[in-house]
């Protein structure tokens, strides 16, 4: 369990409406500082400057999907140790078990409940070593 509360979250998502809802949820309900990235290709750069506690990745995005981005993050020193939570509409558990082996922290399935999202993230955060 990390020695500080979860406060900075970076979310990479191509869908504008979901971005808006997640931002509102995490800011209003979760009282967190949120950085939303629209284009996965710019994500790593933005993460390096934002320095999040935790990263949320959408699974399916045009251009680059979540798992690919995740693997890229593992190659960059500044992002390789960031805990990553996948948001996915696909109940692709088998794929996820592979990513968990690579170090993914958790998975939240879409549609998630905004009300519960901050708590879900905190639970994952608290379960980290």
């Amino acid at each position: 369990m990390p020695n500080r509360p979860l406060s900075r979250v970076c979310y990479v998502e191509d869908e504008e409406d979901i971005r808006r809802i997640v931002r509102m949820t995490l800011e209003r309900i979760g009282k967190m500082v949120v950085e939303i990235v629209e284009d996965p290709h710019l994500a790593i750069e933005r993460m390096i400057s934002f320095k999040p506690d935790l990263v949320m990745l959408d699974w399916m995005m045009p251009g680059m999907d979540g798992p690919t981005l995740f693997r890229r993050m593992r190659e960059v020193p500044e992002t390789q140790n960031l805990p990553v939570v996948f948001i996915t509409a696909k109940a692709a558990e088998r794929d996820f078990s592979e990513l968990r082996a690579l170090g993914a922290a958790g998975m939240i399935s879409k549609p998630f409940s905004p009300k519960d999202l901050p708590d879900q993230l905190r639970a994952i955060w608290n379960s980290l070593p």
Partner: protein
Amino acid sequence: MNQDSAAASVDPSANPGNSADPQRMLAERVEQLYGQTPIAVAGMLGVAVIATYGLWGAQFRELAPFWWGVVLLIAAARAALYAGYRRSTDRAANPSQWMRWLAISALASGTLWGFTGAAFFPSRVDQQHVFLALLLAGAGGGGIWAYAASWPVFTLYAGAIAVPFTYVMAATADRLSAELAFLVVLLFGMGVGIVYRLQRAFYSARGVKHAYRDLSDQYASLQTQLEGQMEELMHAQRVIALSGRKLALFAERAPIPVFEVDRMATILDMNAAAETVFGYSSAELVGRNLLRSIVPAEAPVLNDGWWTNFVAAKQPEAGVRAHCLRRDGIEVVCEFSITPLVNEDGDLISAIVQARDVTQQLDAERVKKEFTSTLSHELRTPLTSVIGSLQLVNSGALGDVQKDIGELTEVAERNAQRLLDLINDILDIEKIESGRFSIVSEYVELDDLVRESLVLNRAFADRFGVRLMLRDEPPRIKVHADRRRLLQVLTNLISNAAKFSPEGEQVEVGVSIADHRVVVSVDDRGPGISHEFRSRIFSRFAQADSALTRKKGGTGLGLAISKLLVELMDGQIGFAEREGGGTRFFIELPLRETAEAEPG
């Protein structure tokens, strides 16, 4: 063969089993002998008249009444015997008896003539001696004819004539008499010899006749037998022709392509469906190699190497899927069943190749998959936004909302959630049924899982004013199951129970072990399951009361999914009426490991 039968029939003792058996031969000889009787008796009377005339004199006159009495008596006896024989119904069955009677009558006749000669000879003049000798020789000679069918009878007859007469003549001691006596003996011997020969001839003739009749009989019976066999053969041929026609019809009228090919895969015959599917006429393809005609050479199956292996193995192949080319170049995907036709020596004669055009089926599967994927992603993504937005509004995180608006956004959220549940349920069912659904089994602490399901559903039950509780402290037990899916099933059962329980009642969940199975039961005090609904309760979109559904929600797919899931975990799901009202739903899972026997 004919010669053999004839030869066998000549000797009656050689083959007692065949038709020339001694009994029958004897009966025929008796018949023959009796057949001569009327003429023989008439001859006897005629000779008696001639003798009376020839021997007439003082001595004969004295003896005439007595002699004629004896002649008539013997004639009458023979006539009576003849009549008796003719009237007898069993004469063929008892020929030896009739033969004996005939022998006695022959002896009597012979004796008559013998003693006639002996009695009248001594007192006669030479002329009359000659007459008498001639008479007796005639009587004896007539016997040859009359008794030809039996040499012993003739011997008796002729002996009875010859012995007294010879004796008397020998006793007379003049030269002529001695010569005559010698002559009589000679004639007697010759007569017996002739009759013996005649009888042999009789046997041969009869034997040949019998053999011929037997042959005719055998021929007739063979003929009948042959006709029967011919009829059977014709029938069998008709049956074969009919089944052949039936088979041909099976192939010809089959809605799928059927080919017959030889061991080199050369097409011998093909049906109309094959013409339709592959676009070739039968005339174009028959005589050509099937594989090279419709399967591209680079195909991984049904190529020349594949066929060589098939011919070597001679084992039926099924479900061989290959991309084939029609005559017009369009690709069709076919599933082939190839059955070798092997003869008694184990040689492959030909093979029946059936093809099923699965192109459309594959297209349909692809469309279905695309549809499912669309449903999964394209519907759920906007719903995420809808539900998320409404939840944010309804949570109050954005500040207070005007009461009317709040009510409406809650209605919107609830119904959006319902729509999402429905989509999720349909996707679940589709995935399970298409076999793309995999159960991730692990050792699950069942008691913990049951407690978790109670916690998760407590808020839902609160909405209906229903309390959830554990019936007893559940035993510490592990089952091998998919944790998430088992939780889904329990949630389904518990939420159903809560939905259908009257307000203020409680839903009891229990865990028990019975007969190597773990049973989780969920008991409610609801209205029970009506008889009409029982049979389709686990069917899709099955809801007992649609008015209630609208009020309390639910897609009607929950139990159908639960059943599929439980069965995927080798378990069973069921329900029973509960004493005191309500229903018990239960799932049974195989008991694999107890907590003590946990691996690792």
